[in-house]
């Protein structure tokens, strides 16, 4: 495969908690370009195929102006099940309004969970979709929240089915860092603030090690390093909204209630850096996706691919399907403008891709192989339609200012701490306890982490 042979640097950016329809569903709408090749929303305000119900009241998708939301949205396993609303053997995708009410206790005529954004509010994502490739059947691997889905993304296994303030267990010999190390593949993580990888069990030495660098170093590294020195796999992490300390970074991970604007700015920054040097860009593949749908409506049913608990899992009931679709964009000069890849993908498609590139087989491990046999394709399938040679043009990203309502207006009043926020705080404390000096050198913002916390607050599960 010509393009995959030529690509030497894979850049993976994983944002938080948005559904495909929330970010890119507008692409197929008549008032926003009417792309018939993309499976987005069609006449969402009147299309009865999308109606959600709460106490017999119907709710339609609605245009949501980007900005800080009043509440986070429901996305734990039980409430995702309510959102998928399986009936008569079908996932009806009709429970997003109901789950929002159950989770927030708020009953409004315009539940944000039914919201989609206009292209003006997702300018960078819309730009990449137009100029490179959009994957309109990329699913979160599991119908659950952040931690299980990120476990799948970075190991192919989910020993947990929920997000809790505890170290995330890792199935031995499955984690991406260990896998890359074993094959002599250079890799690096660029993080804004606290890295999500700090939440995984036993990764302290990696997270404090030389492969983890502040995103502030990325421009200089990218410019200075030769092809021989550059890492082959780069993970770029946003500033997580749930991080306990924000110092020098605005949350830009797209996690509600955080707005999309800062994340779109961040994605534009990354794209501009990667495309600065044509030679390096010609060897680069940028993958930008969201870890899970975050509680936002999506109209496409998940894939009926089950996931059994791996050995040592902290749950017993297998997952019966993937999660809902998430926005996923792939950019490289090897990709023609306006590409739409419709094959079934999930986060393990990245592991397949890396395994193909660095070990000659898509079967990263047993579970990834099982998912491949169940229908999940590799990202390399998208490259099957790649160009014979890299494009000579480098499209310029939108130059307009991207509104960042978080920074301009300030966040809503602090609300009850979620389990994800508690998990970040616990991981940061563990990191400090492991090696305070190195932790503060690597993550200086942790100096502002309060040592004493009030009594654990009840989680946001009203009603």
């Amino acid at each position, binding site marked *: 495969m010509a393009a995959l042979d030529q690509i030497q640097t894979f850049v993976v950016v994983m944002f938080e908690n948005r559904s495909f329809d929330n970010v890119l569903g507008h692409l197929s709408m008549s008032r926003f370009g009417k792309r018939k090749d993309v499976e987005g929303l069609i006449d969402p305000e009147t299309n*009865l*195929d999308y*109606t959600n*119900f709460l*106490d*017999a*009241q*119907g*709710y*339609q998708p609605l245009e949501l102006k980007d900005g800080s939301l*009043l*509440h986070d949205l429901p996305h734990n396993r039980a409430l995702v099940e309510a959102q998928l*609303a399986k*009936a*008569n053997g*079908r996932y*009806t995708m*009709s429970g997003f309004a109901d789950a929002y009410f159950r989770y927030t*206790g*708020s*009953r*409004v*005529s315009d539940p944000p969970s039914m919201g989609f954004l206009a292209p003006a509010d997702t300018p960078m994502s819309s730009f990449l979709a137009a100029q490179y490739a959009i994957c309109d059947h990329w699913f979160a691997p599991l119908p659950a929240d952040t931690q299980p889905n990120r476990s799948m993304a970075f190991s192919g296994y989910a020993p947990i089915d929920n997000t809790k303030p505890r170290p995330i267990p890792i199935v031995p010999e499955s984690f991406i860092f260990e896998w890359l190390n074993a094959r002599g593949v250079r890799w690096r993580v660029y993080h*804004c603030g606290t890295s999500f990888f700090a939440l995984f069990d036993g990764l302290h030495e990696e997270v404090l090690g030389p492969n983890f660098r502040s*995103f*502030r170093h990325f*421009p200089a590294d990218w410019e200075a390093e030769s092809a021989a020195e550059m890492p082959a796999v780069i993970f770029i992490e946003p*500033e997580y909204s749930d991080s306990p*300390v*924000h*110092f*020098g*970074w*605005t949350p*830009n991970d797209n996690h509600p209630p955080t707005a999309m604007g*800062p994340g779109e*700015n*961040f994605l*534009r*920054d990354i794209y*501009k850096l990667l495309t600065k040097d044509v030679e390096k860009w010609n060897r680069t593949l940028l993958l930008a996706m969201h870890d899970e749908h975050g509680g936002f409506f999506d109209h496409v049913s998940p894939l009926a691919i089950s996931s059994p608990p791996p050995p040592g899992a902290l749950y017993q009931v297998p997952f019966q399907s993937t999660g809902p679709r998430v926005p996923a964009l792939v950019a490289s000069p090897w990709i023609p403008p306006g590409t739409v890849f419709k094959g079934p993908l999930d986060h393990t498609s990245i592991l397949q891709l890396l395994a193909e590139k660095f070990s000659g087989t898509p079967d990263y491990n047993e579970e990834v192989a099982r998912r491949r046999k169940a229908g999940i394709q590799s990202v390399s399938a998208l490259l099957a339609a790649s160009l014979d040679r890299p494009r000579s043009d480098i499209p310029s990203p939108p130059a307009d200012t991207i509104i960042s309502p978080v*920074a301009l207006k*300030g*966040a*809503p*009043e*602090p*609300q*009850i*701490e979620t389990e994800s926020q508690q998990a970040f705080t616990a991981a940061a404390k563990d990191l400090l306890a492991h090696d305070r000096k190195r932790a503060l050198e690597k993550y200086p913002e942790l100096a*502002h*982490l*309060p040592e*004493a916390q*009030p*009594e654990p*607050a*009840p989680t946001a599960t*009203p*009603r």
Partner: protein
Amino acid sequence: MEMGYRALYGAPRVLVLAPGAFAAALWVRKKDTERNMIDARRAAYSLLPLHDRLLVVAMLCITPWMTGCAQIKSFSVAPSTICPGETVEINWKASHKVTLQASPPVAGEGEGPAEGRRSIAPDRSTRFTLKVPGVLKSDQREWDVQVIPSQSARLLGGIARCDDARFVTTSFTIEQKDTSARTRAVSIVNHYQRPLVISKDAIEVEIPPNSATDRFKAVSLAGSWIIRTAVAQNETCDTALEAVRARLTITTQMSCGERVHGSP
């Protein structure tokens, strides 16, 4: 280079730690209130004379107890749909004193006790917001009330099923807590390309495709409804279910009829 090195913190706030003892102007971002307050307390504490330190300790001990993590345990507004002149009853239970706000403003909003009940008569569709402020964490919920005739169209329906081979059916109940007893379905619209049969009380009407009926104009919206559509000759119940995407929905135009004896 438009990196994300933007200043984070919002407007400066003044934090008073103890009466007459110390005031610290801090750059505090709202979300970071808790941790910054603790940092600020620590910094300020070291500058205080001994007698004021005792005051600070006392304040630190009682503040979380007084205003720590606020929580709303329940909040409801009923009915959610009313006729002009009718009242809604608002009930709440929270950990601390609450603030009830309305948009647009109505008489009766304002501060209230941690647990309470209030009757309010909005003359327009209104969003009620209950807030429980806390220094460390606050909590908030919203509830919309629709006042007919300001927005009288309403989408009703539910998930459909194949109860027998001849029909795809859904049934649902509009509870009294959700609508005034005076609301009437003056018109019911069938948006589908297939006939719908609507049943309520003793009335059953077949509405042709893309048509409407006024046969329910004297019937209260509250109560149990059944919607069904026949499985066509070229369909199985399963394909008929797929054709309606496993849902059956109607649009009702609502109006306010006469007050029913015993109704609110």
